[in-house]
């Protein structure tokens, strides 16, 4: 595809930007605060952080305000910001078993150790518009709860460990590695390592991860998992203290984790379960589950179905890549289009179809005689 530089008045570009900003403030309501976005629109900030690959709740809220609610644009702003920063270090490797869970459900095991904890969710209620929310008069519906006798916080046993203890978990062949590849610094090469797959899926665009995961469930794939558990909670961020050398906790990131069991039948003498895994920043169960399906699908390493092809999946799910490529189509392509016009005119002329010598409308381009010539390119 050919590109050519074009110029336009800088002032006009600024005016267009000013008009965009005016749209945000052009009504009679109060300016929405970054605190409000961070505090009340946690799903939006979670999505922006997850896709931006940067955990920074307040800046995510700022990015959402700036992007007027466009999460991919907000994620883009976060990635642009992170590209200006130095990296202090990698954290100590966290074990997901350390998650301080606020919600954990296991669709696979009814009597899971630690119990089924619904947490904050509307999964089991009807999706009806709540007109009371229009009144701007919030009340705490949990105000009357008696919370005195629930005991101290517990760490919940990871469900996969239960299967591992029974020998039902398919143990991987590859040896454990210490240092994962970082796809933000080195591009993925194919076939990718599993740690690269997980990193890329973790910052994939929510809709894309959901859609490709769904494709496998719809029959364009062989993976139809049972979820071992879905968890939402806080994961510690630890570094080695520069003076004491001890691991210390800087903060916690809110994460969503999903694990799926997938039967492995090819080892017929020893049938076991394979697993898919999903972990994302923030509360985003749909994406974590989609990631789980894609992780399990990619392990099949097949070109037969889109979701099982690592290159197809990883090249498609990155929101920044798709955002950039789709949106760049809006930029001037005058030379490209002129060359297409010239080619079509030449073909029409060669075939004696060129009466006026100009193609002026879309209807003419859709003429069957013209459309039929496109295969000659």
């Amino acid at each position: 595809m050919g590109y050519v530089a074009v110029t336009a008045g800088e002032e006009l570009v600024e005016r267009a930007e000013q008009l965009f900003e005016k749209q945000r403030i052009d009504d009679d309501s109060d300016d929405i605060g970054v605190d409000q976005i961070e505090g009340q629109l946690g799903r939006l900030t979670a999505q922006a952080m997850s896709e931006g690959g940067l955990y920074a709740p307040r800046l995510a809220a700022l990015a959402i305000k700036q992007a007027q609610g466009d999460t991919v644009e907000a994620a883009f702003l976060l990635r642009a910001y992170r590209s200006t920063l130095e990296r202090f270090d990698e954290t100590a490797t966290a074990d997901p078993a350390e998650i301080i869970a606020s919600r954990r459900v296991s669709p696979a095991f009814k009597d899971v150790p630690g119990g089924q904890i619904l947490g904050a969710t509307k999964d089991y209620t009807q999706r009806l518009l709540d007109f009371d929310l229009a009144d701007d008069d919030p009340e705490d519906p949990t105000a009357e709860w008696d919370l005195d006798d629930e005991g101290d916080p517990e760490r919940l046993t990871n469900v996969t460990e239960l299967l591992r203890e029974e020998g039902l978990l398919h143990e991987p062949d590859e040896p454990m590695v210490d240092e994962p590849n970082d796809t933000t610094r080195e591009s993925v090469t194919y076939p990718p390592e599993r740690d690269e797959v997980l990193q890329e899926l973790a910052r994939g665009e929510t809709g894309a991860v959901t859609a490709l995961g769904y494709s496998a469930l719809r029959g364009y794939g062989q993976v139809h998992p049972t979820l071992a558990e879905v968890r939402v909670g806080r994961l510690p961020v630890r570094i080695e203290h520069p003076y004491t050398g001890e691991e210390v906790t800087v903060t916690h990131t809110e994460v969503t984790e999903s694990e799926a069991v997938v039967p492995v039948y090819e080892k017929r003498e020893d049938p076991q379960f394979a697993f898919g895994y999903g972990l994302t920043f923030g509360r985003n169960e749909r994406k974590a589950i989609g990631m789980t399906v894609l992780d399990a699908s990619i392990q099949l390493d097949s070109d037969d179905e889109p979701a099982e092809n690592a290159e197809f999946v990883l090249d498609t799910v990155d929101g920044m890549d798709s955002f950039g490529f789709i949106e760049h189509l809006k930029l001037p392509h005058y030379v490209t289009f002129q060359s297409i016009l010239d080619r079509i005119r030449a073909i029409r002329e060669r075939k004696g179809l060129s009466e006026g010598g100009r193609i002026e409308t879309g209807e003419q381009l859709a003429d069957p005689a013209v459309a039929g010539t496109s295969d000659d390119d």
Partner: protein
Amino acid sequence: MVDPHDRSDRFELIAACEGATLAQFANDVLEGDPPLSVRQEPRPQLLMQQVCDPVERRPFNLGEVLVTPAEVELEGTRGFAMVPGKGERAALSGAIVDAAVAAGHEETPAIVAALEDVAAREREQRRQDWAQSKHTAVEFETMEGQE
């Protein structure tokens, strides 16, 4: 039990402390104009959060976490702090507070008391969060054979 006199514990409590509280203590410490040098300017930086994939038990990069670290030397004693997010003032104040406690500055009792309050608040918040979640614990019943 966390101990604000312990450097590792103090680091965690400073990271969880309100920026305004840290700034107030830092101002109190600097009131006598003690010699202070900034060894590491407070600037937002990144930590790559690594997680162990429980399936293959190998680490992967989940994503980066925004933090602000700072390091100072106060009257010959070094202090280091790191706060979550973009918080230059809080990080610098935290490093001064860390150095002050390490040096046994006269503000130490007040700082230690404030950090103990932070620890208590964190414990209570965690207990309350857990209690809320436990309030939604459910036992699913299968309905096999029921029409």
